[in-house]
């Protein structure tokens, strides 16, 4: 059979095509060129920027890795995690203790941090995600609250409230900050590729399906609890990896870096950057790096307040976040281009 033609069957309203229909491939005209330019810029950056600026860019990439993971839970799965900063902190401390106390080489700390936080993510997510929603928020909230005092409790291992300095990675032929930048950049690139593959696969589709229509997802054979738990463990693992990178970058860990307020700032970054969008985590990381620093100049207590107000403002004015605003801007530019250059 040739089948009934959809258009013939529903001829009363023709579907829009191209831009108006949201055909994503056409909204950004020079995708490949933009990608190539990004690669060149990313590779050249450490030889142009002064060390302090490069340090800041490295931190943005570190937070971007953390937000890629958080976006899996908040954006793709539609759940709330208030404990992302704690998993980030666990990763940071795993790296710090392995390098500083055990004298292990830094490359092994990355998989170790990933493994530990993946396991913790399973353990925390398994009970909470059977109930979901607010329960997950409460469980992750308590994880975030418990971590700093716990770290202070074992000063022989963690350095206590004062924290501890850690030797940063060194590479031959490059300055330390340049070497670290490239390490973080490479890790971030792998992290992006992993999330991209994941969200475009069977599991990623299931997360979107479960978030948008749980009943239909279940009828299609998708088990919500199992997918959400896996997504949560992955998100914790990304936070752990980012935490280890943070230790490499800053060469210092202290309990008060990884408080509830970091978790809230990260959540704000994910929302403000744009949920479940490719560019969201990077834009969110810019916000996470820049906003608390700027707010602290006003008042030491301001960062939490400013993050909160920004969440409200974005949810109210631009629900798709900065990524959505940029996409709309790009679409507006593309619409003004001569038709021939659009494809």
């Amino acid at each position, binding site marked *: *059979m*040739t*089948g*009934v*033609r*959809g*258009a*013939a*069957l*529903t001829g*009363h*309203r*023709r*579907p*829009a095509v191209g831009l*108006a*229909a*949201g*055909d994503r*491939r056409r909204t950004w005209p020079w995708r490949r060129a933009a990608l190539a330019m990004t690669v060149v810029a990313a590779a050249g950056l450490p030889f142009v920027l002064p060390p302090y600026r490069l340090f800041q860019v490295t931190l943005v990439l570190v937070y971007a890795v953390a937000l890629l993971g958080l976006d899996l839970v908040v954006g793709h799965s539609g759940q709330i995690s208030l404990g992302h900063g704690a998993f980030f902190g666990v990763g940071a401390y795993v790296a710090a203790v392995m390098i500083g106390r055990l004298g292990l080489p830094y490359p092994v700390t990355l998989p170790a941090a990933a493994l530990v936080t993946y396991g913790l993510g399973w353990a925390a997510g398994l009970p909470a995600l059977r109930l979901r929603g607010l329960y997950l928020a409460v469980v992750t909230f308590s994880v975030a609250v418990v971590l700093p005092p716990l770290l202070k409790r074992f000063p022989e291992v963690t350095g206590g409230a004062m924290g501890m300095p850690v030797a940063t990675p060194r590479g031959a032929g490059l300055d330390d900050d340049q070497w670290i930048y490239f390490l973080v950049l490479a890790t971030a690139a792998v992290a992006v*590729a*992993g*999330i991209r*593959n*994941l969200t*475009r*696969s*069977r*599991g*990623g*589709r*299931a997360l*979107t*399906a479960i*978030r*948008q*229509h749980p*009943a*239909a*997802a*279940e*009828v*299609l*054979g*998708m*088990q*919500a609890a199992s997918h959400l738990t*896996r*997504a949560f463990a*992955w998100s914790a693992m990304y936070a752990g990896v980012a935490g280890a990178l943070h230790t490499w970058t800053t060469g210092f860990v202290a309990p008060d870096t990884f408080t509830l307020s970091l978790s809230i700032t990260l959540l704000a970054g994910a929302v403000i950057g744009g949920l*479940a969008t490719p560019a969201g985590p990077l834009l969110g990381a810019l916000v996470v790096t820049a906003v608390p620093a700027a707010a602290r100049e006003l008042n030491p207590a301001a960062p939490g307040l400013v993050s909160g107000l920004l969440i409200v403002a974005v949810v109210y004015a631009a629900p798709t976040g900065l990524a959505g605003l940029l996409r709309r801007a790009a679409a507006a530019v593309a619409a003004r281009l001569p038709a021939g250059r659009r494809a």
Partner: protein
Amino acid sequence: MAALLEVSGLTMRFGGVTALSGVDLAVGEGELVGLIGPNGAGKSTLFDCLTRRCAPQEGRVLLAGEDLARLPAHRVAGRGVARTFQNTALFPGLSVRENVMAGAHRHGRAGFWGAALGLAAGEERRLRETADALLARFGLGEYADHPPEALPYGTTKLVEIARALAAGPRLLLLDEPAGGLAPAEVPAFAGLIRRLHAELRLTIVVVEHHLDFVLSLCRRIVCLERGHKIADGPADAVRRDPAVVAACLGVTR
């Protein structure tokens, strides 16, 4: 004809409301059965019980002899039951093709690790080919990359049927598939379902308000009213049954 689906004594209460009351229904392998009844008769609730969306207080649902009550809801798809929803339940965040690929979820095995490491490409290609073949069958190939909101309502109904078929069902439950279609579209739509039924050797139960549609489509009609089965038989007999006329035709005409 061996009964694929056997419902016996099914009772479903929501608080003080009895949505289904002692309903018996047997559907043979390969049958195409119409399920009619006024609003609130319990038609959609019956579908919900068949897909384990609801846990009935009494009665049994056997699919090929297996008690569905023993299965968790997400395993019912694996036993070959697929359905569509009354107001269409496509996933707006996925393209039309991805929606159909999501329908084939149970035919994939890739987990998070395999997918993230790029090991699921072969399976992904297979699911994509399945989806594209189904979309082509429905004449929807050109919409594959579009988000579902960009399509007219009648077309989204077709996409949802394609998604249900992607699961590879033995028993297909269609909840008001013709609802919201323009009158001119209805005969072609009935033809489509008839062809699917014949070519894929499916067992289909259709819930429908649109009586001309369902009477022209199904040889056997079951009528529910306020949770009770009031008629079950050949379409011509049910159409003339005074109780059915009072319950359905009087209301919907």
